[in-house]
C-alpha cells in the first residue's frame, strides 16, 4: 500500500519533480496573443503580427536567461497584466475557474446517486402501505420476484 501511494505521488508530480527547462512552445502556448485573434502566441499566424512576433522575441530573451517556466510566466504577467496568460492561474479567486466545473459535477454525481438509490428502494420494495399489511416474511415473495426478474431480464436481452 505505501508503495502504491509512493507510486501515485510520483505519477502526480512526475513532470514537476524532474523540472526540465521549459520548451519554447510550452511558453508560447501559455501566453495569449494580444492582437485580438483570441489564440495563443503559438497559434497566432497573422502576417507581421504586432503582438505575437515581439512576444516570441521576448520569450527567447527570457529563456536565454535560463529561467524556469513559472518565472518566465511571472515576468510576462508582471509586465502585461494577468490577461496575457492563456489560462487562469491556480491561486486565489482564479482557482474557482478550475474547481467549479468539477465541484458541480461531483455534487451532480452525488445527487444522481442518491436519487437513484431512492428510486431503487421504491423499485425493489412494494409501496409502504402494503409493507405494513403484509408481514415481511419474504420467502415466497422473493421467489416470485426472482422469477419476475428472470423473465424481465430475458425480455430485455
Amino acid at each position, binding site marked *: 500500500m505505501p508503495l502504491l501511494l509512493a507510486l501515485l505521488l510520483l505519477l502526480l508530480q512526475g513532470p514537476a519533480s524532474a523540472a526540465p527547462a521549459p520548451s519554447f512552445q510550452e511558453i508560447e*502556448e*501559455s501566453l*495569449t496573443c494580444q492582437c*485580438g*485573434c*483570441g*489564440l*495563443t502566441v503559438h*497559434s*497566432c*499566424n497573422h*502576417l*507581421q503580427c504586432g503582438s505575437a512576433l515581439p512576444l516570441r522575441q521576448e520569450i527567447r530573451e527570457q529563456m536565454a536567461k535560463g529561467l524556469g517556466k513559472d518565472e518566465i510566466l511571472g515576468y510576462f504577467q508582471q509586465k502585461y*497584466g*494577468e*490577461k*496575457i*496568460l*492563456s*489560462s*487562469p492561474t491556480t491561486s486565489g*479567486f*482564479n482557482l*474557482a*475557474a*478550475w474547481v*467549479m*466545473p*468539477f465541484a*458541480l*459535477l461531483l455534487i*451532480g*454525481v452525488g445527487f*444522481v*446517486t442518491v436519487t*437513484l*438509490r431512492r*428510486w*431503487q428502494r*421504491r*423499485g*425493489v420494495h412494494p409501496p409502504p402501505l402494503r409493507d405494513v399489511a403484509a408481514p415481511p416474511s419474504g420467502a415466497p415473495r422473493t421467489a416470485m420476484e426472482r422469477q419476475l*426478474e428472470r423473465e*424481465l*431480464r430475458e*425480455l*430485455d*436481452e
Partner: protein
Amino acid sequence: MTPELGPLALHLGLVLAIYAIVTSLVGVWWRRRDVIASGEHAAFAVWGCVIVAAATLLHALSIHDFRIEYVAAYSSSTLPLYYTVAALWGGQKGSLLFWLVILTSITAIVELQNRHRNRELMPYVTAVLMGIATFFLLMVVFITPPFEALAVPATEGRDLNPLLQNYWMTIHPPSLYTGFVGMSVPFAFAMAALATGKLGDTWIRSTRRWTLFAWFFLSLGNLFGALWAYEVLGWGGYWAWDPVENAAFMPWLTGTAFLHSVMIQEKKNMLKVWNMVLVILTFSLTIFGTFLTRSGVISSVHSFTQSGLGPFFLSFLAIVLVVSLSLLIWRLPLLRSENELDSLLSRESAFLFNNLILVGIAFAVFWGTMFPVISEWVRGVKITVGPPFFNRVNAPLGLVLLFLMGVGPIIAWRRATWAHLRRSFAWPVSVGIVGGIACLALGGGNYWSLVAFSLIFFVLGTISAEFWRGMRARQIMLGESAPLALLRLTVKNKRRYGGYVVHLAIVMIFIAITGTSVFRQEKQVTVNQGERFEIGGYTLQYNGLEERDTPHISYLMANVGVFSGDRQVDTLKPEKRFYKKPEQPTTEVAIRSTLGSDLYLVLGSYDEDTHMATILAYLNPLIGFLYWGGATLAFGTLIVIWPAPLAAREPAYAAAPEAREGTQS
C-alpha cells in the same frame, strides 16, 4: 420591388405576430375554435410578411441598391452572386431577418402538421413560437432595421468581409441558425404541455423529429464551423474554444442530453421534470448564444459588430427563464412521476450519468466562457480563459462520456447482473484493451492517447456487438443473408441502429480529436527558392513565389512541391490574398488530405525581391475522421429521422415499449 416594402412587411408582421399570440390565448379562454384558428392563420401571415421582407432585402442586394446602409456595408458590385445572397446573413441586421425567415417557416410547417393533431396544445405552441417571433420582429423593426437608408447614398459598397468570402459561408450560418431555431419547437411544445397539464409523452413524441432535425443542423453547423476555421484561420487547428464556438456548442451538449433522456421518459415514464429542465436549458442557451455573439460582452473574432442588442437579448432571456420555470414549478405536482429503479447497474443509470456529463461539459464551457467577465466583476482584473483551459478541463469529461457511450447501449434495462455484464462486456472490453495497446505500440503517444484509443475501441466493440447480435438473430431465425439481415435490422429499428451509426460518427470525431491533439507535428521554416525541408515523412521543396491578379483580389502564392520519398506526389500553393475592397490581406492555406493525415501549409512572411519565404507546415494526423465523422453523423441522423412507411406507423405507436425496443437476441 421597392425597398419601402421591407419595413412595411416587418411592421405588419409584428402586429400580426402579437395578434396571433393574443387570439391563441384568448381563444383557449373563450373556448372559441374560430378565434384559435384566426391566430393560426395570423402565424401564416407573419411568415408571408417575413418572406416578403427577406425577398426585398435580397432583391436590394442583387441590384446593388447602395441607398440602403446594409447593402452598402456588406456587399459590392463586384461581389460574386452566391456571396451576395450570403450577405443576407453576413451582418447583424440581415442575419436577424434571416433568423426570422427560418423561425416563421418552421412555425408554418408546425401549424400545417398539426391542423388535426395536438389540438389542445397548438394554441399555446402558436403563442410561444409567435412570442419568439415577436421578439425578433421588435429587434428588426426598432433596434436594428435592415432597411435603414443612408443619408447620402453610397456609390459603391464596402463589400463582405473577406474572411467570410468562403464557400462555408453559404452553408455554415444557415445550418447553425436552423439548429438554433429548430430547438424552439420542442420548447414551444414543452411549454404547451405545462400550460395545458397534458404532461405525458405526447409533447415529446410530437416533437421527436423536430428535436432531431434541430440537433442534426446544430451538429452540422458546429462541424462546418470547425472545418471553416480549419481552412480559413490558418493556425492548423479547427477548434479554438472561442466564445462564439462555445455559444454554438453549449446548446448542442444539452440538446444531446435531451435526446437521450426523452428515451427514458418514453420507455419508463421517468425523468419528466428533468426533460423539461433540459428543453428549457437548451432553448435558453440558443438565446444566450445569440446574445454572446451579438452583444459584444465578450470579445471574439467571429462576433458581429457592436450594437445595442445586448440588453434586449438579456431581457428576453430573463423573460423566457422566468415564464418557463414558473410554469414548471406550478406543474411540479403533476410531473412527479412514478420513478423507480431496480439497480444502480442499469441502462437507466447509465443514461442519467451520460446526461450529467453532457450537462457538466456544457457548464464547464459556460463557466470558462463567462469567467473573464466574472473575474472582472469580482476582482476588477481582466483575465483570459483560452484554449489550454478548455482542453484541460474538458478532456477528462469527454473521455468519461466516451466510456458511457460504450456502456449505455448494452447494459440491461432495469437491472444488470454480473453474469450479464460479463457476457455483454467481454467482447468490447477485450477490443478496447487490445486496440489501446496496439495503438500505443504502433504510434506511441501518451497516457491520454492510450486511454482515448482504448475507449474508442471499447465503444467500437459495443457498436459492432450490437449489430452482430441483431444480424445473427435475423440470420438464424429468418434465414436471411448477412447483408440483408443487417439492412433489414437497421430499417426495421431505425431509431436504435441509426443511433448506433451516430455513435460511430462521434467515435470517429473522437479519433480525429485525439489524433490532432496528441500526434500533431508542426514546423516553421524560412527557405530560399529551391530549398527543401521535411515534415512527417514528406519532403517539401519550395519553388518560389507566383502572382495572379483579378479585379476583385490579387494573389501571391508559394509553390511547394510535395515529395514522398523521391516521387513528387503533389504541388501545394499556400497563398496570401489581397482583397481590393476593403483592402485587406488574408491567408489561404493549402491542404493535402490523405486518409491518414492532412499536410497543411501556410505562407507566413515572404520577400518579393529575394523570393525567400517563411512557411508553416503542419501534419494533422487522423483529421480525415472529422470529415468522415461528420458525413456518418448526417447519415445516421437521417436513418433515425426517416419517417416510417405510413402503414407501419400506427402499430409502432401502439406497440408495447419492449416491442419497440427492437430485435431481441
